[in-house]
């Protein structure tokens, strides 16, 4: 459908260019907040507090980053986030992949029922308080393990992968069984290699969710030594808006509260930017949409 531009009428050309202009405008406005934060993080404290930073850094300096990188809590929380992301994602995959496979097998007795058990949790949820009390009763407050296991699974990911498994021709499973494979081997040697795109998508979503997760970490973790980066960042930001007395300790001429916060935000976004191209690869494969329907 993409004809040579010369073949377009004047009206169509105007339309095409106008459209490009509008899309460009939207894109720039999407991008701007990131640029703004990045600019702040490289500006001097004075420039930031006196409101000179709009688009590009003013009095370029890396003092804010130096301050961030010398903050022990930054490193502790960064390390924690890394632990939660790594082990959380592994745990998620260890639960989701076998479960989705089992739920996709026609020979599973009560398959409809088990699928309903999973899907029902998308529509009805006990809510914050019972979940919290349950975690407390399980002794999972303030523990690495609690954060890792408590959020390892969700109905959406299971259904997404189950649909993918269901789309694999059953004759492949049958052929593998005839070839002597047991269920574990069928899953490991046939279905997992074939579901790579779907598993990659789920993995990336788990990673992003883990990296960004903050609410339950904030609620469940009391020990400062266990909090993830997002909770640390949140503490900084609330102080920013509350004008906490701690904030005043950060006011120096070379960095300010604003620039330090901005620097932490940048440090937190960078890993996401790093895996973002991998996520992008799966956008157009329709896998993301597969989960919408059962």
């Amino acid at each position: 459908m993409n004809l040579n531009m010369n073949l377009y009428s004047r009206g169509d050309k105007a339309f095409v260019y106008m459209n490009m202009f509008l899309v460009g405008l939207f894109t720039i406005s999407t991008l701007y907040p990131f640029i703004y934060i990045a600019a702040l993080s490289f500006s001097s404290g004075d420039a930031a507090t006196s409101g000179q930073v709009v688009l590009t850094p003013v009095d370029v300096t890396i003092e804010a980053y130096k301050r961030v990188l010398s903050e022990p809590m930054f490193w502790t929380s960064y390390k924690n986030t890394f632990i939660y992301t790594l082990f959380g994602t592994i745990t998620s995959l260890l639960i989701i992949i076998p479960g989705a496979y089992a739920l996709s097998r026609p020979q599973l007795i009560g398959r409809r029922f088990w699928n309903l058990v999973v899907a029902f949790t998308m529509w009805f949820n006990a809510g914050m308080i019972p979940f919290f009390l349950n975690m407390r009763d399980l002794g999972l407050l303030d523990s690495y393990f609690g954060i890792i296991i408590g959020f390892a699974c969700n109905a959406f990911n299971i259904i997404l992968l189950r649909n993918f498994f269901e789309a694999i021709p059953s004759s492949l499973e049958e052929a593998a069984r005839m070839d002597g494979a047991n269920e574990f081997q069928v899953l490991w040697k046939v279905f997992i290699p074939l579901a790579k795109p779907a598993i990659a998508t789920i993995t990336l979503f788990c990673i992003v969710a883990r990296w960004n997760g903050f609410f339950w970490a904030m609620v469940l973790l009391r020990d400062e030594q266990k909090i993830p980066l997002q909770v640390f960042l949140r503490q900084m930001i609330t102080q920013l808006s509350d004008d906490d007395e701690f904030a005043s300790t950060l006011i120096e001429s070379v960095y300010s509260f604003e620039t330090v916060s901005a620097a932490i935000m940048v440090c937190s976004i960078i890993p996401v930017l790093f895996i973002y191209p991998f996520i992008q690869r799966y956008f157009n494969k329709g896998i993301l949409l597969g989960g919408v329907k059962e």
Partner: protein
Amino acid sequence: MQSYNEKLAWLGRHLKREWQIYVLLAPTLIWFIVFLYKPMYGLQIAFKDYSVFKGIVGSPWVGFEHFTTLFGNDHFIRAIKNTVIISSLSLVFGFPVPILLALMFNEILNPKFKKTTQTIVYLPHFISTVIIAGIVITAFSPSSGVVNLLLQSLGFDPVYFLVKPEWFRPIFIGSGIWQESGFSSIVFLAAMAGVNPALYESAVVDGASRWQMMWKITIPCILPTIIIMLIIRIGNLLEVGFELIILLYQPATYDTADVISTYIYRQGLQAGQYDLAAAAGLFNAVVAFILVMSANTISKRLSNTSLW
């Protein structure tokens, strides 16, 4: 009895043959039971005078007392009102944007430009709520934020946006649109990719302009998707991004910002009134369940395909 024994024997043979898939299913089921179904059992505290020492089962029943308390409480009523208002406004202002965006992406001819712009507008979806909040707080800061700088340069007085109740909703909804519009457009782009190219080709032969093709072909073809997405959104009316609200609101803005989830968070997790908060949560969950189920039924009837 014979057939019962037969069934049992059959089950025995089946398990002997297929035990492995049950082993594979077990972790998932156990997880769902321990982390999602056990809390449902714990929901009973909504009808109990919950005491930490007596536990969930041991605490005495109080019937609907908590619900009576809740509906007599101005703050809870306010939270319901705010939930519905914020959600509806998000729908009205936020729903059309991804559709427009998808239509615009669809009309871009230069593949490189298309890919770059798409990459950028999808990005905010993957950014954490805390950072979104951080950006908002920084940008709307009264002394140094870029928004106030702009206002000042235009001759206005600086506004302390985040303590003004009337500004909370626009800021919240605006940041939601900024974060999610791009990513939400994927669904519509996928629907457009499914339109038969022959339709456009015959339209070109018939001399249609691109503007006409958009209105006469693209939009009618993606209308079913639009309707279904709209129904899903209405079904999720009670779901507001409460994490962002928790990060952005302050006692000064509770009037317009406090929603059911944040109310539950404050009453339950911050003030320790677990039973009352659980009752509010149960109310929320039941209404949400009814909405979602109705949405599913309607869309099933409209499209003959279930959403789940």
